[in-house]
């Protein structure tokens, strides 16, 4: 199953820089807002999270990500493009697990639309996480 929305392992610097280059080509945009979600080394019951293992339902991720983009485009007329990249597999604390990149004609809609996209991802994207602790035990979230 093909997807443009998932990447195996952390969202790499290469993906981020490639997107900046790609979006730069759209000269009708006056601003980009980039959100990077990072794996946090939470301490739960005395155990520190060393990584998160993400799993996803790829077919439904495609369907839901398209719906999210459609919603944002219909609410924010100034938005030119939306890119979503979520990790699957292991992402260590301090690494990036989610990228949302929104370009718009002007800064306000770029920022508002990016924020709303992240919220919609949290609610609607079929992705699951398993926190892996330093002693290799785990907990589903």
């Amino acid at each position, binding site marked *: 199953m093909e997807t443009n929305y998932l990447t195996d392992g952390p969202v790499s610097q290469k993906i981020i820089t490639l997107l900046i280059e790609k979006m730069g080509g759209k000269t009708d945009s006056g601003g980009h807002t980039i959100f990077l979600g990072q794996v946090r080394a939470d301490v739960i019951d005395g155990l520190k999270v060393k990584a998160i293992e*993400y*799993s996803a*339902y790829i077919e*439904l991720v495609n369907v839901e990500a398209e719906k999210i983009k459609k919603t944002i485009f219909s609410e924010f007329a100034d938005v030119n493009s939306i890119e979503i990249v*979520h990790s699957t597999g292991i992402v260590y604390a301090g690494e990036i697990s*989610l990228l949302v990149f929104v370009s718009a004609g002007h800064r306000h809609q770029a920022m508002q639309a990016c924020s709303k996209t992240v919220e919609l991802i*949290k609610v609607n994207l079929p992705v*699951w996480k398993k926190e892996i602790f330093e002693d290799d035990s785990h907990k*589903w*979230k």
Partner: protein
Amino acid sequence: MQVKVLFFGVLAEVSGTGIKYYHDVRSISDLKLRIQDDFPEIVHYNFRISLNSELTDKDIELKSEDVIALMPPFAGG
């Protein structure tokens, strides 16, 4: 007839497998009972269901080759 059931998140662990096939299931409610027979502890978990990549909370009649996914609350980001 045969349907494919996908287990996601913690349910993959509960079922011990990500995928299981069921034969001669009439409907989603029938399938739920069959899954509950196989994995009784599943009753302790909340999950939503999708049929062929579409979320549904209805009791729909199943046909051969349908793909049903059992999905705990999403936790992306």
